[in-house]
């Protein structure tokens, strides 16, 4: 009797498993996890071109400077995961002469490399690729101007203030502010003295800053 009972129970379990596998074998289409579309920063998504993030990473995928405009990535770890994934995916491509492009988690990522620096700009998947690419080119060229052609990680870190100001001048809260590299670099480099400030307050460092600005200007005019 007990044996019979056990068998019956086993049988139910067995059929349970069989049904499970038959349910699984319906081969339902993979539905990608629906990402929350409540991007407060990107409310204008529908009509206004927008940028989700700008990344400047080194040749090992570490951050040099990054700026996120979308709350698609809420935590630092999700940001780092995104950076790692994008870096790994693009690492082996040759994006030195021309900017390259890829799709990644429903985003368009346009990227370009110089020495040991990797530049990325991300936009939504229904964004005009060429607009994203223009933003990247603006960023890339502006950094080139600001670092006087020495575009590498060391130089970038030593002039991190310029890089951060540069990011600030390109995009404001996801909206493109400026894409012309000369204008961006010009705005960042205008470390001139406040005209209202008395001369006596000028320090050596300010004088140096002025000199630097003149140098940049002369570079820009070339």
């Amino acid at each position, binding site marked *: 009797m007990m044996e019979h*009972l056990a*068998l019956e129970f*086993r049988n*139910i379990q*067995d*059929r349970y498993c*069989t*049904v499970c*596998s*038959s349910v*699984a*074998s319906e081969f*339902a*289409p993979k539905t*990608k996890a*629906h990402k929350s*579309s409540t991007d*407060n920063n990107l409310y*204008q998504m529908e*009509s*206004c*071109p927008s940028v989700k993030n700008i990344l400047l990473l080194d040749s090992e995928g570490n951050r040099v400077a990054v700026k996120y405009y979308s709350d698609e990535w809420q935590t*630092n770890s999700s940001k*780092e995961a995104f950076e790692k994934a994008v870096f790994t995916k693009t690492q082996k*491509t040759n994006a030195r002469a*021309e*900017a390259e*492009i*890829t*799709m990644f988690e429903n985003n368009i990522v*346009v990227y370009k490399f110089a020495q040991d620096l990797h530049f990325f700009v991300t936009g939504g998947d*229904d964004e*005009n*690729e*060429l*607009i994203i*690419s223009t933003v990247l080119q603006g960023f890339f060229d502006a950094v080139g101007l600001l670092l006087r052609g020495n575009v590498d*990680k*060391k130089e970038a*870190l*030593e002039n*991190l203030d310029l890089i*951060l*100001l540069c990011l*600030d001048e390109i995009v*404001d*809260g996801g*909206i*493109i*502010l400026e894409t012309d590299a000369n204008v961006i670099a010009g*705005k960042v480099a205008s*470390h*001139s*003295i*406040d005209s*209202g*400030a008395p001369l006596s307050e000028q*320090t050596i*460092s*300010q004088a140096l800053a002025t000199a630097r600005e003149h140098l940049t200007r002369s570079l820009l005019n070339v």
Partner: protein
Amino acid sequence: MAQYVKKDDDRDEEEYSPFLGIEKGAVLQEARVFNDPQLDSRRCSQVITKLLYLLNQGETFTKVEATEVFFSVTKLFQAKDIGLRRMVYLIIKELSPSSDEVIIVTSSLMKDMNSKTDVYRANAIRVLCRITDGTLLTQIERYLKQAIVDKNPVVASAALVSGIHLLQTNPEIVKRWSNEVQEAVQSRAALVQFHALALLHQIRQNDRLAVSKLVTSLTRGTVRSPLAQCLLIRYTSQVIRESSMNNQSGERPFYDYLEGCLRHKAEMVIFEAARAITELNGVTSRELTPAITVLQLFLSSSKPVLRFAAVRTLNKVAMTHPMAVTNCNIDMESLISDQNRSIATLAITTLLKTGNESGVDRLMKQITNFMSDIADEFKIVVVDAIRSLCLKFPLKYRSLMNFLSNILREEGGFEYKKAIVDSIVILIRDIPDAKESGLLHLCEFIEDCEFTYLSTQILHFLGLEGPKTSDPSKYIRYIYNRVILENATVRASAVSTLAKFGAMVDSLKPRIFVLLRRCLYDNDDEVRDRATLYLNTLGGDGSVVETDKDVKDFLFGSLDIPLANLETSLKNYEPTEEPFDISSVPKEVKSQPLAEKKSAGKKPTALGAPPPAPTSTVDAYERLLSSIPEFSTFGPLFKSSAPVELTEAETEYAVNVVKHIFDKHVVFQYNCTNTIPEQLLENVVVVVDASEAEEFAEVATKPLKSLPYDTPGQTFVAFEKPEGVPAVGRFSNVLKFLVKEVDPSTGEAEEDGVEDEYQLEDSEIVAADYMLKVGVSNFRNAWESLGPDFERVDEYGLGPRESLSEAVNAVINLLGMQPCEGTEVVAANSRSHTCLLSGVYIGNVKVLVRLSFGVDSSKEVAMKLAVRSEDESVSDAIHEVVAN
């Protein structure tokens, strides 16, 4: 400048980083220099940079730390150094101070807003608008309005962009700036125009007329900035979308503008316009041509971004207008070898969509070379595309199936292998001719398969399909090999499959028993138990020769109770003297798993073409209906329709109906959802008035006992109708129920309820409900084999139609039949078209239809309808459907 000695070792490179060994505590200490009476601007700048570096690396400051830094930073407004001030602006934005802290910097920022230095003004506006709240905004509104029309473009842009952000939080204030913004739209500075246009549109976006006016005036004028031009294109297509319904015959409004943009000098604008044209509703091939032409030029660009953009757009176009894209096929083929694998994959999948039957073989050859050097994720996309191609051209199954089996043998990860196996299984299901070869490919695959999941899936599938083939015995070897070679899970699954062969194929039974007996000595108990169970029930003792039907049902029939219910019952079962009784498990489905919620607004990604929906819903419906005693006598279910919504979106109660067609009955299944948390509905029924459906008589209703908030439930109404007659009719529906108030905090419902009713939209039974979409793999053969005995041919005039393809789709939908061999797609500009349809009519009568369409210059469409079927009356019935 310092001299650095270059070292070879890369790791030493790190030493040069100015931030090496940086530590938050130390930097916070350093930040005290902000409080020095004699400010050293350069040093302060450096410290801010370090703070920003820390934040950028993901470091977080505690509330106290952030407040402290913020307060000392505010002191730096004394310094007159522009560079330092810029860094101050940056760090204030990064620290995002709380509203009581904001007050401290407000006056300094307002002073900067009115400074003579433009850099200060622009940045102060951006910072202030970023950190401000509504109350402060009224104070600075005047300055912002001035800034919008400032002659310095940087200042104007800063104010406009801030306006775009503020519009989300304080729309009423920003809307007052319309005049200034309008003035800024005329600005000579390119980006000011862009930002002004974006803001103006957002201010007016709810006023259709105003947007339309804006677009009308700007499309005539000159918009300088390419970005602004792109915006204008987007707004224009929005206006076109909203106004397209009005004038059907004439020119599409603003199309000329979009087409003109294709000749713009900026590639960004050209592409935006081309994309806008391809996305127009019901775009005609004439309208598409110029857009396709520029995209085709982009395909051979040296810039990867441009190639990608073009191929991605063409890929989308190929889904709806494959013929329009065929001109690009040569360029597309050269992209298969593109360095950028995303581009190559998009090119391949586009080619697979646009290719015709004769080009398939050549294409497959190219893809074979390509597959070896792309990543798995791209391969999956290609496999999906090949599956849909195969369903489109069933005659080509041989080469496509070979391709799939070849790639199945190559290296690959689980997801990729699963995609291939899924595809083969779908092809086996949908193309009967492909079954035997497909099964053998799967058998070969499991001979060397490292994924347990896939092995068990395939074994299960073999058990279902294998016994029905012409020579089931050849699969036994593959299956028994699993018992010898694999892990316990696979062995157990192989035992079940063997038993299925034994149960279904009597001639194999003795041999199966021999094999099963060997499994009795397996070292895994699950395998042994299964073998014992099957041997005993199938009569392995040699006593019973014919396997009882009950035993088959018991062993292999589908479980007719919901798994979730069984699971709860098993959990609640306490081991006592009384055995577990499976009939005690409730059969009522608690939630409706079939109501798939479409993820709203998310378009399918370009790389992943949506796979065809699974066809398993019918099985689930059949199981559901047969579990209801009232309906169990209706016989086999012929067809279940897709759910039809009977309520508007976002109403109190959401109801949709699924029509189940039986030989002599029709059952309406109403899927109801209660969207009010404060209500519990009881005794929910749908009262159906069938006065406009004379041939139907109501026979049964099954009310829904209880419908709590957000848990879908079903109620049913059944009708009797004359057997075999495709009766049609219209039914009006009213939802009736008892409402009980629910206390949302406790979730308890009150005792007493109120009777209430809710008007639903009408439902209809139409001719197409009696037709099953069933494809045939070779239409010509099928047509010949049916013979001309019951052929009925007639001609019809369909009157003036918008386009030929619209007419073709209308007839397909009317008949509810499956288009064959891709003939539902009408070639662009063609004057005539032939469409092949197949289906199964109620009473399991096979029907084939050949439709020939012709259209004349006044868009009058004429149609010749030829029907062949196994039954004369059915052929006539099809004609009646069209004639009415």
